[in-house]
Each structure stands twice: as structure tokens, then as C-alpha cells.
């Protein structure tokens, strides 16, 4: 059994990491044409081009955007998830469906439609981007936190209350620590929504917020930029991967 699990884990890791191998090779390839199995010339041209295209500031912007979206969507998702996990919400199914609807609608249509509305209301571009991406992240955080709250035993908090803790303290000292792994998972997903978005950031953001996905998309739209695209893609994949490992470790420690 233990061996089977270990094999399964190894297979999963290979399946996740294998697509990164050509990416790493391309990132370090100055020249790589078929039928060569490995690049004919190694170098840092891709890295240089990526830096020249503004990858540094773009990843900083992506990080800030991801963090802001996570900071907003996680508590909102937790509140919604908690309410929906109980039976206190009338027509809870309908409310959940409404919260999940951003998953079903094509983001392009949403971005185009709401762009006009946000412009009419004179909502600043960056606020509009954060607003839309937070709504897009809510389905993930809500569902995750709803499951977490459904599995959460409120007995622990009641115990704390009988021992004299205030309601606030019971939440902060008992409930939140117990739900920390779920909260970290939800925050991670919300971060990804902000980190990886193209269409909302470009259209609603009015081009003022040039993030990493914008650079990747424009560089990837022609041939000859493979090394640069590979560096930019690795720059997009590795930080979330590191974050995922961190979240996983946090979950295991509990």
C-alpha cells in the first residue's frame, strides 16, 4: 500500500513536471531547430529578451494583483462558504449557483460587457480589474471554504465559549487556526486568478497594467521568440508552484 502510494505520487510528480522539461530547455536555448534532440546553442538570449520586454516589473505587477485579489476573495469566500455550509441561507442552492456563475460565463464576454459599465460609472481601471477578478475568484474560495466549514466541528468553539472566550476570540483563536489549511488553499486559488489573467487585465485595465500574462501572450503570438516565451512562462509557472508547495507543507503540518 505504502509502495503503491509512493509510486502514485512519483507518477503524479512526473506528470506535472514533465511538461516543464522542454520549457527549461527552450529557456536556455539560443538556437534549437529540428531534428536536433537538444538545443544546438545554449545561452541567455531568452532571459535577456525577457528582461528587455519588462518581465521584472510585469511580474511585480502580477504579484501585487494576485495578492490583492487573494486578500479580497479569501475572506469574502470564507464568509459566503460559512453561511452556505449552515442551513441559515434561504434558497442556498440558488445563492451558490449565482456565486458560481462566473465559472460558466466566458470571461471574454464578461470583460467586454462589464468594461462598458465600469467605464460609464467612472470606476478607475485598476479598481475595475481587482473588482472583476475578485468576483472571478469567488467561486473557488466559496466552494473550498463551504466544504471546509461543512467538515468543521463547531463544538470546539462552543467549548471555548463555555470556558469564557468572547465570540471574537473563539473565531480568532480556535476557528481560524483550524481552518488555516483551507484558507491557505482558497487564497492560493484566488492568487492564481489574479496572477494568470489576460483578458480582464488588458481590456478593463486599459493596458495600464502590463502583467506577466500580457507579455507571454504577445511574445507567444509569433515564431522566433521561443526562448523568451519559455523564460516568461517559467516565470509565470514557478512562483505559483513554489507557493503550492508552501501551502501543501502548511497543510501537512496541521
Amino acid at each position, binding site marked *: 500500500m505504502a509502495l503503491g502510494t509512493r509510486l502514485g505520487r512519483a507518477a503524479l510528480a512526473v506528470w506535472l513536471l514533465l511538461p516543464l522539461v522542454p520549457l527549461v530547455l527552450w529557456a536556455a536555448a539560443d538556437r534549437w531547430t529540428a531534428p536536433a534532440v537538444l538545443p*544546438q546553442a545554449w545561452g541567455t538570449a531568452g532571459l535577456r529578451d525577457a528582461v528587455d520586454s519588462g518581465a521584472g516589473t510585469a511580474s511585480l505587477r502580477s504579484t501585487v494583483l494576485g495578492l490583492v485579489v487573494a486578500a479580497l476573495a479569501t475572506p469574502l469566500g470564507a464568509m459566503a462558504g460559512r453561511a452556505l455550509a449552515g442551513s441559515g441561507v434561504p434558497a442556498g442552492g440558488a445563492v451558490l449557483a449565482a456565486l458560481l456563475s462566473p465559472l460558466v460565463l466566458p470571461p471574454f464576454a464578461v470583460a467586454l460587457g462589464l468594461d462598458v459599465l465600469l467605464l460609464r460609472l467612472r470606476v478607475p481601471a485598476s479598481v475595475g480589474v481587482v473588482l472583476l477578478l475578485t468576483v472571478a475568484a469567488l467561486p473557488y474560495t466559496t466552494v473550498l471554504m463551504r466544504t471546509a466549514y461543512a467538515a468543521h466541528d463547531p463544538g470546539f468553539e462552543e467549548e471555548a465559549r463555555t470556558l469564557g472566550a468572547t465570540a471574537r476570540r473563539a473565531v480568532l483563536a480556535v476557528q481560524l487556526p483550524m481552518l488555516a489549511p483551507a484558507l491557505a488553499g482558497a487564497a492560493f486559488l484566488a492568487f492564481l486568478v489574479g496572477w494568470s489573467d489576460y483578458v480582464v487585465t488588458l481590456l478593463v485595465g486599459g493596458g495600464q497594467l502590463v502583467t506577466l500574462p500580457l507579455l507571454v501572450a504577445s511574445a507567444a503570438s509569433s515564431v522566433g521568440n521561443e526562448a523568451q516565451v519559455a523564460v516568461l512562462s517559467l516565470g509565470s509557472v514557478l512562483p505559483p508552484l513554489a507557493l503550492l508547495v508552501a501551502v501543501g507543507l502548511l497543510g501537512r503540518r496541521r
Partner: protein
Amino acid sequence: MAADRPWDDVLAEADGQTVDLWMYGGEEAGNAYVDDVLAPAAAELGVTLRRVPVADTGDALDRVLSERQAGVTDGEVDLVWVNGENYAAGRQAGAWLCDWALDLPNRRYTDPADPLLTDDFGVPVEGCESPWHKAQFTLVYDSARVPEPPTTLAGVLDWAQANPGRFTHPAPPDFTGSVFVRQVLTSVVGGPGEVPLEFSQEAYDEYAPALFERLATLSPALWRGGETYPQSQQELDRLFADGEVDMTMTYGPATLADLVADGTFPETTRVLTLEEGTFGNASFLALPSTSGDSAGAQVVADLALSPEQQAAKADPGTWGQFTVLDTGRLEDADRAAFEELPASPVVPPYAELSRNAQPELSADWVSPLDEGWRRSVLAP
């Protein structure tokens, strides 16, 4: 805005403005030219030029149309690198500011009768966009693998038929694939000038069947037996780079020098000039009607049209884009700058490339031909 406003007023208003130029970001050389050459020159005029890279020019148009719908007058898009369908769609929706491009001081160096500058894929340019560079539809081959290349498009099709699996083209509605199909259309009907530029159903019914018949006959001899086609010029370029096919094609031959220099394409890559000529077009800078920095945008468009910038941009080492200026109208010193441009071993000079250049069919031809190809050739 007054059409005949003194240029000094425009310059004064532009001072301190920030101009957002939305442009397709897939061309590294183009990005570098704008960042390192055009933007510093704009800064000297007091205008901050910001480049917004997009994967598709349609994204910029979408933003402008949203702003227009919302009645925005200080929009985030001040210039768009555009031509063809995106220009036509924007023109129809009133997305572009007109009445400015003909008044730019450097416009005097262009030929007012130049057909590439008066019409953009059949849509009148008027003052609604300012020319930036010219392009020529170009077939490209590897001289190591095709030592004796054909000299006409009919010859290319025959060559493809005789060399199964060594040729293909992007599937329309990809931009380049669509141009190729139109180019074959002019070839099979007996040469340029036969098909009317204006679209009509009668003309389509008369000329299109011969086109589709020729391509359907050719299809089994194409790469992968014509079962599948590259979805984009990018995919075709990849096939060419990997030696899977011996020819590729592009509407932007300027990029070839770079692709050969960085080793993506083999050193033996050459341009295939056709006796009957190929389609030519120009691309432009359009100024959205929602722009809040239109004075700055005009200053940048004028700067981009200046002999110094056009010559710098035409250098194959910079971007290699063909000039829209009529060099005969330039001062001697400026003309010399163009004459001294280094020759590229891969891309012949524009004069040679554009010999017998054909004007593009109107944009109304594009969709029916793309759709017809899909029905008659791809899935008969």
C-alpha cells in the same frame, strides 16, 4: 478639433502628454525599435510614449469600442498599429479620429496618389490613419532544398504537386493563409487585374470555382496529404524552421532577416520573387476617437513618418520595415540615408520585392473566400 490648426499649437498641447501605443507585440525587433528609437525621440518633443503589447490588434479595438460605448473622452488607447479588417471594423463603428493624418507636416514626403496609402484593403484611408510602413506578401524558400525555385505562383503550385508533402499554407481565416488563397485566385484566373477589387456575388460565382478546384486538386500533395493545415503563419514558420516543409510565406518579410540571424530559419532562406508580383499593403497608426491625448498621438504619428525615423526603421538591423515615403520627394541628405541602408542577403530591397505589386482585394472578399475554401477544399 480644427483640421487646419497650426502645427505649433498641436506641439504645444502635446508637451507633457503620455501616449499609449497599442501594438501587436509578437515582433521583438518592432518592440525594440519603439522602445529604443521612437520613444526617446518622442521624449525630446515632450511626449512620453508607452507601448502596450497585445497578442491581437483586435484587443485594442475592443477596448476602444467599449470606451466609445461608455462615452469616454480620456481613453487609455491613443494610437493603434492597424490595417485591414481591424481598421475597417473600427471605421464602421466610428472608432477612429479622422481629419488629422493628412495634415501632419511629414505627410508631404509621401506620394498623395500612392494607392497603398489611399486605400487600406479597399477602405478609403482619408485622414483617419497615418501610414507607418509598407509590406509585401512574400513566399519564402530554402535555397538548399529548392535549388531551382519556380518563378510564378502557378509554378509554385506545380512544384508543390510534384513534391508531395513539402508545401502547405496556413488555413484561412488565418490572415496569411487567407492572403495566399486570394493570391492563388488572381493566379488561376489568368493574372492580376482580372478579378475586380470590389466584391460582388457575381464576381465570386464567376472566379471562385476555378480557385477551389485548383486548391482541391493540390490538397492531397500538401503536407500531411492536406488532411490538416497549419492554423497560423506561426505554425507554418515552425514547420519551415524544422525542415518539414521547404517554403513558408509572410506579409511581413522584414522579420525574415532577424529569423535567419538568430538561427530560427536556415541561412539558405531566400525570398521567392514572383514574375507577376504579389499583393502589397501598408499598415498605419490610427488615433481612437476616445483618446485623451490626441495632440501627443499626432506628434508621435508625425515623428514616425519623419525621414529620420523611417530610415532608422527600414534598417534591417533595426526592424527592416519598408518606408511609406516617396524617396524622390526627400532632401538629398535624407534620400542618402535610405540609399545607404545595408542590403540584406535574405530580403531583397523593397523596389525589387514590390515590382508589379498588386493592390489588395477589398476586405469584403475575405470572408466569402475563407468560407468557400473551408467548404470546398478543407471539408468537401
